[in-house]
């Protein structure tokens, strides 16, 4: 991403944020209409969590096919970002819950499922920490990510539909579900966050690549005679 795109992204999300205050009307029919507008920030965060974990699953699958270390780094970066957005979605969601439903945490199926989701990917990071050898770590964590993916789909798409929920279902894509102004703001914010996501993702990868280069350089410096078999056991 070059400078211009970064600046445009910044202007876009700043614009959407301002519009969410000045242009977006308070939501009638909620306990506190002013604060109910939180949904235009909260929902895109939750959607990006899903996108990030989807990206993680895709790169995990690609890794198992190609065994390319960079692909593993991409999967890891996506999982890390997914965690960030999951935290943001949870915090903004409980602020909304505090205003509308009277308490910050209600054990609503969607609240439960995002906590479970964070547990899934916390376990993914624990696994990555528990395996020394790089290629083995990549292989095992990719396999785990693909096993966790069906569980994640269950938590996000199926559980909230079989248990009573405070959250509405099917409002996002249906025509009657949402006021047009809300729909426009929400999706614009989603687009902005998506661009920010790409930005963060690439920066995260550059960190990873720099770390790998530093490690290679270290190995060359400390043991000049050694064979390049440091990666295997």
């Amino acid at each position, binding site marked *: 991403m070059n400078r211009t795109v970064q600046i445009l992204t910044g202007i876009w999300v700043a614009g959407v944020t301002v519009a969410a205050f000045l242009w977006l009307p308070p939501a009638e029919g909620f306990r506190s209409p002013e604060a109910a507008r939180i949904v235009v920030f909260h929902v895109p965060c939750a959607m990006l969590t899903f996108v990030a974990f989807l990206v993680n699953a895709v790169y995990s699958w690609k890794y198992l096919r190609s065994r390319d270390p960079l692909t593993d780094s991409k999967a890891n970066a996506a999982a890390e970002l997914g965690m960030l957005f999951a935290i943001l979605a949870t915090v903004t969601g409980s602020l909304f819950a505090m205003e509308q439903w009277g308490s910050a945490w209600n054990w609503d199926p969607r609240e439960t499922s995002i906590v479970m989701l964070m*547990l899934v990917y916390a*376990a993914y990071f624990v696994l990555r920490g528990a395996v*020394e050898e790089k290629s083995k770590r990549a292989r095992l964590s990719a396999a785990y990510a693909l096993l966790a993916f069906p569980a994640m789909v269950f938590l996000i798409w199926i559980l909230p539909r079989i248990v009573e929920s405070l959250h509405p279902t099917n409002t996002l894509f249906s025509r009657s579900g949402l006021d047009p102004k809300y729909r426009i703001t929400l999706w614009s914010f989603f687009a902005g966050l998506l661009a920010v996501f790409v930005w963060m993702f690439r920066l995260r990868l550059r960190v990873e690549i720099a770390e790998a280069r530093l490690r290679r350089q270290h190995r060359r410096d400390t043991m000049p005679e050694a064979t390049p078999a440091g990666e295997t056991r």
Partner: protein
Amino acid sequence: MNRSSSWAHEAIAVFAKDWLLELRTRVALGAVVLFAVTSVVASGFALAPPSGVPAEVKAALLWVVIFFAAVAGLSRVFVVEEETRTADALRLAVSSTGVFAGKLAFNAVLMWTLCAITVPLYLLLLEAPLRNASLLVIVVLLGSTALACATTAVGAIVAKATMRGALFGVLSFPVALPPLLVVIHATKAAWLSDNAWRVAAGDLQVLSGFMLVIVPASVLVFEHIWSE
């Protein structure tokens, strides 16, 4: 011999070999059953009738006991291959699908044994209500199979890593969570509900659907975990 029957034969051979070994040493069986009996007795002692604990709590507790008992033993079947260094020989002799199917069958039977001991004991000691016994049998059977399906591939991952004991619990919990949530709901229905079959029908569907997804996913992924 065509391909499909060959992996089935391999699976049966792996299954028979593992059970023979297990019956000789009784490591997994002993760990799992002892864990379950100990926790059932302890909770029976604490929660016996005068305590007035609602049946909903008892349903959740039953499955928590079963899940943690399973965690004590389900990874054994892969760990033993790594510890005795027989994994390489198995890799050469048997296709990865055959190995997975055999190990999954082993774990499923282990889970059924566990439940056959734990559930009656639990019903007896905690005096749980029972409106619909036949539904409970089906729920326990499906639930224990689903837990085995969800955690077998995780066991294979854990066997390759360090700190196996702690790791298996951490890693299998998220994957086992969907069947656990559903099965607790269905158990409550079998204990309390008058039209239990109607209440639990959706749960049984989700449970079967989960197995239909997680087993093929595990088979696909297992090939990459198993081969060096």
